[in-house]
């Protein structure tokens, strides 16, 4: 049976404290990828300011996508190496990247399997002015790229030239299309919505 968002969220919260946090500084968005010594970890894009991260890293918004290993293996065929691990259901969580300052709000869904990040998607983005939209335009694809890169085995991170709004947009759209073209069968409908404010 399809789990309700609140139940999914509770299940997420019951897991060990996440080791991946995000932090925002003025005009700058930071994604913190915090690797624990333990092999098992969950992923969470959490509060925007480190000082304000909940002690348990709990996300602020509801719902999480659930994808089977088979779906994920199919999706990743021919792309990046499949990450071996015990067969178990993925866990994701959504939260606001910028809940407390005027740049806007974003919700990101992240899928984790065997302690590795294997999927990430923006499910909601709200911006308030041109500047916030500009920041969102360059930060979102970077967040997605960084998140996905840390799920591969071939390399740790990516060095590339800086994004601009046009390219960010293209990159973002490409990422969104890529991420939503094969949505989990039981993903929430919001995951397939185009990004408001970024068209």
């Amino acid at each position: 049976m399809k789990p309700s968002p609140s139940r999914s969220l509770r299940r997420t919260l019951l897991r060990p404290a996440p080791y991946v946090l995000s932090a925002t500084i003025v005009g700058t968005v930071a994604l913190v990828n915090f690797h624990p010594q333990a092999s098992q970890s969950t992923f969470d894009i959490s509060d925007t300011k480190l000082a304000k991260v909940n002690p348990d890293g709990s996300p602020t918004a509801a719902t999480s996508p659930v994808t089977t290993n088979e779906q994920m293996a199919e999706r990743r065929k021919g792309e990046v190496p499949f990450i071996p691990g015990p067969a178990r259901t993925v866990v994701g969580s959504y939260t606001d990247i910028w809940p407390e300052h005027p740049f806007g709000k974003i919700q990101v869904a992240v899928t984790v399997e065997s302690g590795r990040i294997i999927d990430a998607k923006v499910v909601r983005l709200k911006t308030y002015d041109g500047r916030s939209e500009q920041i969102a335009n360059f930060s979102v694809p970077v967040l997605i790229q960084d998140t996905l890169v840390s799920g591969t085995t071939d390399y740790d991170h990516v060095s590339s030239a800086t994004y601009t709004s046009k390219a960010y947009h293209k990159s973002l759209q490409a990422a969104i299309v890529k991420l939503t073209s094969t949505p989990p069968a039981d993903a929430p409908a919001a995951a397939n919505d185009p990004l408001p404010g970024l068209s």
Partner: protein
Amino acid sequence: MGTVVSFDVRPGDLTEAEARDALARACTLLHDVDATFSTWKPASPINRFRRGEARIEELPDEVYDVLELCALAGRMSNGWFDAWSLPGGFDPTGLVKGWAAGRALGELRAAGVAAAMVNAGGDIAVHGRPAGDRPWAIAITNPADQSQVACVVDVVASIATSGTYERGDHIIDPGTRSASSVVASASVVGPDLGIADALATAIVAGGVELLATLRTTPYAALVIEHEGAIRATPGFPVQVASPGSG
């Protein structure tokens, strides 16, 4: 600065709380650098300096440090990186982002984390070994297709990539003050990310001829041309080259 900074921290012997404290300090440092060097903020020290409202000795020490690094990068690049010849006056932005990331990494290193990476909009500073004895493996994207990896590099300190492919014509030729597009992308590895960032920018503007000038520096470079050809200076630590990238 308006860029995206991501951290990858392997705390090692540190507790999670200690590692988070170090991260918080690194973020505070980036806040401070942004406040000092933001050309978006009219009252920032760098803007006061640009407008001639403040002398260098009246400004934070960091401004002097960055000016020195800009001068050094200018000499190392035969003048192709020139923070003094940009539209709008002195603008160290091409160096500050990498420099700040390197300092943020310094906070993490000083705190004693086993390994860490700071990625400021594609310019990366690393410390330690992420797993076993292997160095950090950093992919350079293919300028013709940003979703593809051109090659993977073993990085022990820093790598910066600059190019015309993502920002359009954002490299300014200091000779003509117009946009230049000689190579598709240039990546530079070396001890200081700020310098590496500036050199990568300079090579995109100045072309492959600049690679020879790195011979007497601790920096190495890899250039991807618009046709897809890859050139690198001796010592550039390329790990693998994917088929079709050359």
